[in-house]
């Protein structure tokens, strides 16, 4: 069955590899090249300037400001999102009342809950941004959140949200959490469903409370999935471009309070035409992302439990 094997292999691989090479691999390589030039976009005018762009980046308060915001989100958003995701998934799978013959059951309607929770995951980030822009409307009577707080007599909590320098970044982080919790509920539910029921039953018979079973059984057995989820969510927290671009006051405001690395890169490249400098930001983002992923994998590693 060797006849035409290599012709077939080449025929099937050539086009996918060509497209992938031209539009993904070659830009990846070029990004490093461009980052060492002062290119402004005109053909043939790029001047090699070594690591000057990186030196400039190191000195740039604007970039550090943006990076700091990404790091804040990196510290908070995955933690909150995964904690809520785990909590809801546990509720869905183990929170149900006792039925005949079954000690551990999920709550009724778990499919419905998953349908709703997961929904933000399938709609466009621009739609999510527009919705939350309206929720955070600063007007005390017209804003959705503010008027809701007013209706409950919580006028003291009313705020200008995205217009408030100390709050704006956290308002945007909350939207990220809101949008991604459902993904982790579904992910962790699938992983929890594969844990044998008798482990829970044995623990419950031995007198463990359900909260103990969560920390002693569920969490250790899900650790691999949690770790992967952490990396996924961290990469999302290192982005935040679309939300900031559409929701924040004056793109990254008020007064730079919500600026993030990808927004810096985008404006530097496509508004200011400093492509060399922007490419250096891209390389810096790659380094930050890789460092985060490697550190997470390294420090979160636990002995794998087979079951």
């Amino acid at each position, binding site marked *: 069955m060797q006849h035409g094997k290599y012709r077939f*292999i080449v025929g099937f691989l050539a086009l996918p590899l060509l497209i992938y090479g031209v539009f993904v691999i070659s830009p990846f390589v070029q990004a490093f090249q461009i980052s060492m030039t002062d290119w402004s976009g005109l053909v043939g005018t790029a001047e090699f300037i070594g690591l000057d762009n990186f030196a400039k980046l190191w000195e740039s308060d604007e970039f550090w400001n943006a990076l700091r915001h990404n790091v804040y989100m990196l510290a908070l958003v995955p933690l909150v999102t995964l904690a809520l995701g785990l909590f809801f998934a546990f509720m869905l799978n183990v929170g149900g009342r006792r039925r005949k013959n079954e000690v551990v059951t999920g709550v009724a309607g778990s*499919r419905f809950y998953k349908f709703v929770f997961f929904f933000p995951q399938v709609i466009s980030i621009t739609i999510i941004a527009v919705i939350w822009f309206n929720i955070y409307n600063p007007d005390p009577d017209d804003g*959705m959140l503010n008027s809701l707080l007013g209706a409950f007599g919580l006028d003291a909590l009313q705020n200008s949200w995205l217009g408030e320098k100390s709050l704006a970044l956290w308002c945007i982080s909350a939207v990220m959490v809101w949008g991604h919790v459902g993904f982790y509920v579904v992910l962790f539910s699938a992983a929890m469903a594969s844990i044998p029921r008798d482990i829970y039953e044995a623990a419950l018979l031995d007198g463990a409370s359900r909260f103990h079973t969560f920390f002693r059984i569920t969490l250790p057995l899900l650790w691999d999935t949690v770790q992967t989820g952490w990396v996924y969510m961290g990469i999302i927290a290192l982005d935040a471009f679309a939300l900031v671009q559409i929701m924040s006051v004056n793109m990254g405001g008020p007064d730079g309070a919500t600026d993030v690395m990808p927004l810096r890169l985008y404006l530097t490249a496509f508004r200011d035409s400093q492509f060399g400098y922007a490419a250096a930001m891209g390389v810096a983002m790659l380094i930050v992302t890789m460092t985060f992923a490697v550190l997470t994998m390294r420090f979160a590693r636990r002995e794998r439990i087979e079951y």
Partner: protein
Amino acid sequence: MTTEEIEAVTKQGPAKPAGVTRRLGPTTGRTSEGGVLNVFSHGILVVWALMVGVPLLWVLWSAFKDSNGILTDPWGLPTVLHWENWANAWNDANMGRYFVNTAVVVGGSVVGTMVLGSMAAYVLARFTFPGNRFIYYLFVAGMSFPVFMLVIPLFFVLRDFPGSSLLATYHGLILVYIAYSLPFTVFFMTAFFRTLPTSVAEAAMIDGASHTRTFFQVMVPMAKPGLISIGIFNFLGQWNQYLLPMVLNQQEDKYVLTQGLAMIALQQGYENDWGALMAGMMIAMLPVLIVYSIFQRQVQSGLTAGALK
């Protein structure tokens, strides 16, 4: 609220007469712990379901209100159904054009991704040849590249494309979408083809079918469940894509839906037609909503497949 009421609110509890389930368990301490937990879990789950569901429903009911109503009374239900919002969105706000643009681009790129991705994956999964591992890892590595780092060089790859510029063209965007969907598609489909039995393909070959024919007539039908999952994954990802068109498709008559919506939203102001914006968001969401409602299980398992491995 009692549990029964909460279940009624979520309209999900299988229709069982109230109290029956409660009588099933003996009244020991353990059961009451389960009962308390059950009320508690439902309470919390309902709160989160409302937090997620209400903003989405708000878009639906706002799509029938006039701009003034949306701005001054965001929580109010529409008093008169303003159907004209939908026509305004489709015609005046150009959502119709953006919808067609998106459909053309995503239609082309989903088909292209599926065909090219499964071809490459099949060869990588089933044939041994020098460089197989290298090519596989080359594809898989693409999953970890931050797209932001690539957009600047990518912009110039398209601008300076031999022949004519690919910026703001359907085929340019289609090629880029295919290229950026290949890593996960190849990764997923390679794993899938490896799980399929080899005997059927071998039988077909013995009967004289060529490799190509074996692939299209034997392997592709066998791989249908995997193709559906990854197809939905790619459809959703490409339909909602925002960054790539923003950079590579900066010409208003070629805008896709996400760009059109962002443009309207960024021109915020009271002269804006908010009713049309809400109707436009519904128009953009509708295909996704349909796919998600029909294929809930496949969508959820498809989108989480990458993280579960």
